[in-house]
């Protein structure tokens, strides 16, 4: 098992996509703070133009001086990182990596060379999942580092934010990302092609999932009329990735921060889905013949 893991780790280091996707992770992580900076610049320019104008009444000026986007907020690196993560940017890249990495061995038939060393093919699945997990964690840490660096660089009024609160949310997000990566990996083992897992993974990670979950939730609420509104988003991986942010996050697009209950629920969803994906991946690979 350790030898197989060693081999897969070498493959990770030898693979071009490892580095390309990591570079993309850094770049995409920098985009969000850069975009916020642009909005801040636009806001400041508008504010300056209003101040310079002599033809407007005091009432009009007061109305226009209302902050267009953010006003005077303190730019927290932790908030910015969460904005990046909940935007599913990293989830998208991790999905692409997982599908390419898992399918690599299957597509070119290298797996055939390993039959002697992995007669129990679940060993191979577990080794690959471990590599995908390592890469996912590295991606999220890369996102945190890149976002923190660029935020500190771009904004004069920046701070690190509440690291304690962030660590809880970041931990849960790591679990959710791992489980999602396991899910697409398992799907790749199941269909043995890049196309389907890529489409499903990218669709779910790019916001289409949220739309589907909302529609399904609406349907369930309409058909079964439960006492409390049912929300499927809460019980899905990408749904929880979208909605799990720290309390007091100024950039949160979701309805407030996650409570302890939300974090526990998201953790349970991640563990259950991740474990299920791993088990299904192992069973499918054991049962299916290698073509």
């Amino acid at each position, binding site marked *: 098992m350790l*030898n*197989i893991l*060693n*081999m897969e780790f*070498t*493959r990770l280091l*030898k*693979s*071009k996509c490892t580095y390309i996707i990591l570079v993309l992770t850094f770049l995409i992580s920098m985009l969000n703070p850069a975009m916020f900076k642009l909005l801040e610049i636009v806001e400041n320019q508008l504010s300056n133009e209003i101040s310079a104008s002599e033809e407007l009444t005091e009432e009009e000026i007061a109305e226009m001086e209302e902050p267009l986007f953010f006003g005077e907020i303190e730019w927290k690196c932790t908030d910015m990182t969460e904005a990046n993560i909940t935007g599913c940017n990293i989830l998208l890249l991790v999905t692409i990596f997982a599908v390419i990495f898992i399918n*690599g061995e299957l597509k*070119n*038939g*290298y*797996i*055939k*060379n*390993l*039959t*002697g*060393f*992995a*007669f*129990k093919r679940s060993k191979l699945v577990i080794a690959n999942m471990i590599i995908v997990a390592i890469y996912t964690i590295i991606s999220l840490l890369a996102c945190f580092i890149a976002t923190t660096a660029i935020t500190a660089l771009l904004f004069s009024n920046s701070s690190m934010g509440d690291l304690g609160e962030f660590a809880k949310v970041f931990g849960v997000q790591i679990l959710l990302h791992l489980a999602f990566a396991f899910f697409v990996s398992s799907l790749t083992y199941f269909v043995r092609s890049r196309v389907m897992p890529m489409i499903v993974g990218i669709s779910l990670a790019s916001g289409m999932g949220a739309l589907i979950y909302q529609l399904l939730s609406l349907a369930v609420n309409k058909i079964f009329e439960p006492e409390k509104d049912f929300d499927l988003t809460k019980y899905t991986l990408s749904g929880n990735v979208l909605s799990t942010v720290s309390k007091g996050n100024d950039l949160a697009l979701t309805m407030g921060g996650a409570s302890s209950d939300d974090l526990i629920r998201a953790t349970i969803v991640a563990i259950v889905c991740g474990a299920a994906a791993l088990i299904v991946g192992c069973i499918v690979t054991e*049962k299916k*013949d*290698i073509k």
Partner: protein
Amino acid sequence: MSYLLETDKLTKIYGKQKAVNEVNVHLEKGAIYGFIGRNGAGKTTFLKMICGMAKPTSGNITLFGKKNNDRASEMKKIGVLIEDPGIFPGMTAYDNLKLKCKAAGINKEGYIEGILKTIGLEKVGKKKAGCFSLGMKQRLGIGLALVGDPELLLLDEPINGLDPQGILEVREMLTSLVKERNMTIIISSHILEELSKVATHFGIIDNGVLIKELSHDELVEECRERIKLITDGSSQAAAEAVKSLGINKMNIIDDNNIEILEGFDSVPEMVFALAEKKIRVKSISVANDSIEEYFIKLTGGKNNA
């Protein structure tokens, strides 16, 4: 006799099709076992079951004395090249071999270089495997199968797509592997003449059924020169007439056909003896089967042989 590999009624069914049907193969240590069959005869499926790539529907596999799933511990002793070589096209030959060495837990210095030399790819340098010719890829596939110094090599159509020079090189390589490393090899092919030059034993498979298993000497015997005598329904009397000349090695195939295995210089005397006994002879000729003809005769058809 204990065999290195033995299968007992090994069967694989895909849907309604029996790809391999109750195959019993016996492989001795140090043999080069030529697995002969048409395209789709079941050769690849059989090899896949041996190496664990496909699960048998029924039957038993005994490998190095270990039966079925117990053979897991012995699987490291086998090297596999099934269908196309499984290589990472974006990596060099060295890196492809290095990956498998990692999986095998091999860290010996110069080990990879040794394999590259064995397969004749020591001079490819940093050329990516994806840019290799078909022959080079095939050799790299064999090289990957050699990692871990296996005792048994399973090679599925390893000479497919190779030019005559490449075929010769692979043949020499296989022969030297058996001699120098004491390996046992199963090699499947439908290029029969080529296989007959390296194999010590043969298994002939058709429609998933192993029709015949025989040694090289037995095959030579089966294909050797013979006098084919076709009579008009009186083969028994014709046999007696020929025996009267002191020629006794013969096979009476049916009422019309006899194969005479000696007395090649006595054909005129045979004709005279048959005429004397008033036996009507349709034809008499000296012939020998090529391995292809023998195969076609066994499988009863000319398609794809």
